[in-house]
Structures are given as structure tokens and as C-alpha cells.
């Protein structure tokens, strides 16, 4: 047990599973001797050799296309897309090939591949180093979408994703890479996919969030406890597809008031699905409009990113609004 950051936990997760399972390999741009632009793959080439952790040509559709082939033929590739903003050349390979292979071959060919990619704002990355594209991918049948928010979950969810028999897009909130440390066990452990995590207990308002918005929502929950003695149940979704619908609905029913928070643009964002899900199945228990706090429907700004990203103040406003309805 040692206290490590999220990016160290990702590194530790990769190292642990590579030690255990020879079929796991890591590939992507600059993941080799450099160890990745965020050092998530640091020392893996030195420890496991160039056949197990290697740099590829600069081509996202190539990285994913080649990874798919490896996965179909018995390996478990972990492909890194350096920034999620760069994933779109590989969109076709992810959506048309990886996600549909099992379905279109009746299970003759499968793609047990993990795609790791840092996403989200908070590092002054502007238009092309800040986006949160989870909704594009959660909309794709056959693809799992996982987003951790703590070092412990990052390691356990990553190992579970690598061991999963289906393709997983593992989106890492880069704003949290070095935000805090947490005790993380050594060796292999899994955090089960498709299970939410209750971050704070509470029965007054349910706040659904994931990734870098989890600490923002936790801060807002703390403040409302202090100011109005209200208990907010912050729920970290952890897996966006397939979603733990039961836990989401349970939290919504228990609290009767719902706020949904993500940094991606609001329109057709993941919050729209959550909101519809709750409206369809739990409307009778809902006492206030379901409120979304999200990025604006604009491209991601650079200088003014702090005004774009939801912060604790905006989340707090939304919580107060649903409480006072």
C-alpha cells in the first residue's frame, strides 16, 4: 500500500497486469522510452521490452486498427490515444470495427481491447487538449465507456477494463492526474465495471457526475451541508456504458431532487440520457426539475476555461435551485 496519484495508479495498473498476463501490451504515440506525455507508461518499455510497450507511427486510426487486429488474434492491447481530442481519425475503427465485430460475426471474432485516453479541461489546453467526448462513444452499441475519478478506481477499473472481453474506452480525467494522492493496493485488483460509487451519503439531493467533476460536486455538497445542513448524495457513475441504471434510479427516488454535472457540452450530452432515464422511470418521485450543469454548447475555450468548466459555485447554485423549487 502506498499513496500515489491517479497517473501513477494508471502506470501501476498497467505494470501489474503486464506482469500477470503476457498477452497484455501497450502501444501508442510516445508511450515507449519517453513513457507517454503524462508519464502514464513510464518505465514499461524498460521493464517489459519493446514487444510489450512500444511507440507507433503518428496515426490514431492506425493505432486502433492495429490494436483491433491484435485483439482479434489473442492479445489484449492497451492502446493510448495521447489526447482524447485526437481520437476522431480513429472514430471509424472504434465505432464501425471494434464495437461491431462481435455482433457482425456472431461472436466468431471479438475485440478485447482497451483504449486509454486523457480527456477533459483544466490544464489550459484549449480547443484540442480539453474535450470530453464521452457522449459520442456511450452512444455506440458494443463499446464500454469507463471514467475513473480516484487513483484507487483508476487502477482497479483499468485492470477490469483490460480483462473485459469487450472493447473499453477508458477515459482518464487529466485534471485529476496529479490532483491528489490516495492509498492504492499493490498488485492486481479489480473494481467492477457498471457499478456506481456513492461518494457522499445523503437523501436531500442526488448529484450524478464522473471524472473530474466528482471533486467539484463533492466540494459543492460540503458547502451546502455547511450553509443549509442539507445532505447531498454524490454519485460517481464510473461506467457510462453499460450504466448501472438501478443505482441511478435508486438515488433519484431516494432524494427526489436531481442535479447532473459534466464538463461536456449540455446538448445531447450524457446528462440528457440520465435525465430522460430518471424522467421515464422515476418521475413520480421527483419533486423538482432535473437540473443539468454542463459545459456550454461551444467549442472549449483556452484563456477563459475556468468560466466554461462547471465549478463548485455553479453546482451549488443548481443544488439550491432544486432544493428551493
Amino acid at each position, binding site marked *: 500500500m502506498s499513496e500515489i496519484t491517479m497517473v501513477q495508479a494508471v502506470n501501476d495498473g498497467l505494470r501489474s497486469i503486464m506482469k500477470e498476463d503476457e498477452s497484455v501490451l501497450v502501444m501508442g504515440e510516445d508511450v515507449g522510452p519517453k513513457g507517454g506525455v503524462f508519464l502514464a507508461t513510464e518505465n514499461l518499455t524498460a521493464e517489459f521490452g519493446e514487444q510489450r510497450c512500444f511507440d507507433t507511427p503518428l496515426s490514431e486510426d*492506425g493505432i486502433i*486498427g492495429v490494436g*483491433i*487486429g491484435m485483439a482479434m488474434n489473442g492479445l489484449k492491447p492497451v492502446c493510448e490515444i495521447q489526447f482524447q481530442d485526437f481520437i476522431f481519425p480513429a472514430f471509424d475503427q472504434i465505432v464501425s*470495427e471494434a464495437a461491431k*465485430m*462481435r*455482433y457482425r460475426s456472431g461472436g466468431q471474432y471479438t475485440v478485447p481491447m482497451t483504449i486509454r485516453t486523457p480527456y477533459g479541461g483544466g490544464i489550459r489546453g484549449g480547443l484540442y487538449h480539453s474535450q470530453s467526448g464521452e457522449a459520442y462513444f456511450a452512444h455506440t452499441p458494443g463499446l464500454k465507456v469507463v471514467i475513473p475519478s480516484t487513483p484507487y478506481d483508476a487502477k482497479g477499473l483499468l485492470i477490469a477494463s483490460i480483462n473485459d472481453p469487450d472493447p473499453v474506452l477508458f477515459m482518464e480525467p487529466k485534471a485529476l492526474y496529479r490532483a491528489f494522492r490516495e492509498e492504492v493496493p499493490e498488485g492486481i485488483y479489480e473494481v467492477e465495471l457498471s457499478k456506481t460509487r456513492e461518494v457522499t451519503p445523503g437523501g436531500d439531493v442526488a448529484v450524478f457526475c464522473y471524472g473530474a467533476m466528482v471533486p467539484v460536486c463533492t466540494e459543492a455538497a460540503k458547502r451546502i451541508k455547511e450553509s443549509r445542513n442539507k445532505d447531498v448524495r454524490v454519485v460517481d457513475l464510473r461506467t457510462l456504458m453499460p450504466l448501472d441504471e438501478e443505482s441511478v434510479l435508486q438515488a433519484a427516488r431516494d432524494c427526489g431532487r436531481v442535479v447532473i454535472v459534466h464538463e461536456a457540452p449540455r446538448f445531447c450530452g450524457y446528462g440528457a440520457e440520465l435525465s430522460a432515464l430518471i424522467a421515464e422511470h422515476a418521475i413520480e418521485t421527483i419533486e423538482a426539475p432535473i437540473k443539468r450543469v454542463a459545459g456550454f454548447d461551444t467549442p472549449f475555450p483556452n484563456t477563459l476555461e475556468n468560466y466554461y468548466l462547471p465549478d463548485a459555485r455553479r453546482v451549488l447554485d443548481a443544488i439550491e435551485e432544486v432544493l428551493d423549487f
Partner: protein
Amino acid sequence: MDDTLQILDETGKKVGKAPRLKRETLLRMYRAIVSTRAFDDRCMKLQRTGKIGFSIPNRGIEATSVGGAAALDAACDWIAPHYRDFAMMFYHGISTEGMFDNMFGNCDDSAQGRQMPVHFSFTEPIKWLSISSPLGTQITNAVGIAEAMKRKKEKGIVLTTFGDGSTSTSGFHSGMNFAGVMGSPMVFLCQNNQWAISCPSEKQTMSESYAIKGEAYGIPGIKVDGNDVLAVYKAVSDAVKRARAGEGPTLIEAVTFRMGGHSTSDDPSRYVDQALFDEWEKKDPLTRFRAYLIAEGHLTDESAAAIEQELADSMMAAAKQAEAKPRPKLGSIFSDVFETMPKHLENQMGECISHFSERDEAVDEKGEFPL
């Protein structure tokens, strides 16, 4: 075509050194071409009578497919194909009935009727990667399959096939580039049939050939007469040997001609001059190979006619069997999305089945209840 490898001229006369092939293999190659024509004819009739929705004619390009297929070892090699290579399947003895199951999208179709016809997927007797409709995507997948073979220290190689149009895709560029850098054990077989639906080669590339594109990736590029089955076999065999020996990938351009429409939905007379069809009819790969086999004493006019009849009959029989099978079960819409069906799909499957059952609509036209 001066730099183009040719062994049989247009009349089937030997003009180069023929590869040493057993009579049995030569006849297997011949039968694969005849099977493909018979399959094409059957599918055209099935489509025109509304029994299947779609097919992809293969007429004219069969020598490229068969020459490529015959160079492989089905026990360890994979094919990552595009959609116009049926003769490869016949050469390797993929089940004809299984192919028709796909054409009809019935309950025995490996894809459970989820894909359009001709999007075949098989694992036996050779790994035939499930076909995708977007073009060029299989090329990088093939590199990955080959790299897995290398890492697992297997002796297999991957043959990936694609048309001239696919050389414009990012998949071709990325696949060639990755394979060049990684030295992947594979062969890129470009079936240059000169048309990407209606787009001719001169609008596809300004390169002097497709083979020359290999140079940019450090991969040897070879141009071969794609209607000469022995020349294609020779070129692909040499490339397979190189790949198996760890000497890296090869790009082969097989120059051929699509003697029909892109698909059963296409009318090529809108964009191909009849004169071109007339010119290429004289280079027909089937008549050329037949003339060679007759000259070599492997075949007679009578035995050739008997083979044609036999294979036409077997296509008819296989098609009838596939046509008689029921559709896939309604629940198959929801299976194989993930290995384990998640809760939301279980719910949707339940809703779907009860919706149609309540209205007695979950009964297909044959009166079967496909649940």
C-alpha cells in the same frame, strides 16, 4: 504492361515459367473460379427474383482471388478480405451453404442476419475475417493480426485484400506504414479492377501504378497480370515466403477488370464504355486458364463442361437449402452486442418480444414463431 508479371498470355499460352503445382491443385483452382461464376449467376437470379436483397458480382477478377488464396496455408494463415473475393472462399472450401446462409440472412448465418449479404465471416477452414462495409478498414486490422502472430511466434501470415479505390483510404496508408515500420508478416493484395463503383483509376490516383505506392513505405511493390492465375499465384507465393521468413510485407497490384456492375444495384453501362468490356472479355481469366489446363492435359472440353454443370447444380441445391431455413430468432437482435447482455438490453429485448408477441406479429412469413 511491360513490367507486369505474366505467365499465361491472353490465349492461355505459357509465356513464362509456370510454378510447380500439382494437377490436383490446378484443378482446385479451376473449380474455385467456376464455382464463383456459378455462385454469381445464382445470386443474380435470386436478387432479380427478389429472394435476396443484394450481391457483389465477381466476374472477371476471379484469377486474382484464386491465385492469392492458393498461396496460403489454411492451417495458420488468415485472410482479411474486402467484399469481392468470393473465389478465395471457394478455393479454401468454405461452406457454400454457409455462404448462402449469409446471402439469405437466415438462422444459420454466422452473422445471424445482422449484415447485408456478402458480408461473410468464417473461422473454418480458414480464418476469413468478418467483412466490413467501410473501405480499407481491414488493412490495419490485418497488420494487428500479423503482429499478434509475430509476438506469439506463430508461423502464420495475413493476406489482406482490397480494391484500387481503397488505396485512397487512410486505412491503406496507415496499414502500409505500420506494416513497413513493424516488418509485419503479411501480404497486401490490391485487386486493381479499375473501378471504384463508377470512379475510374485515373481519378483515384496520379501514381503511375498502385504497386509503386509500396516504395513510399519501404515495401516492395509488384505488378502482376490479375487475370493470369499462375502469375498471381507466383507473386503471392513469393511474398508469402518472404513474410514467413521474417522479411516483411509485400504489396502486390493485380491488374484485372470488373466485368459487371459494382453490385446488383449498379448499372455499369452508365459509366463504362462497352468497348472496354469487349476488350477485357478477350482476357477472361476463366477461358484463359481452361485453355492452359486443356493444353497441359489436365482437362478436356467434356470434363470442363461436366465441372460447370456439377457446380451450377450444387449452387442451386445449396441456395435452396439456405432459402428454406427460418429467419434468426427475434432475440438475436440483442445478443452478441457484448459477451454478457447488460441489463438495459435485457429490458429492451423483453419489450421488443412482448410488443410483437402481443400483436401476433412475431410470426414470420413462414408461420414460424422466431423467438
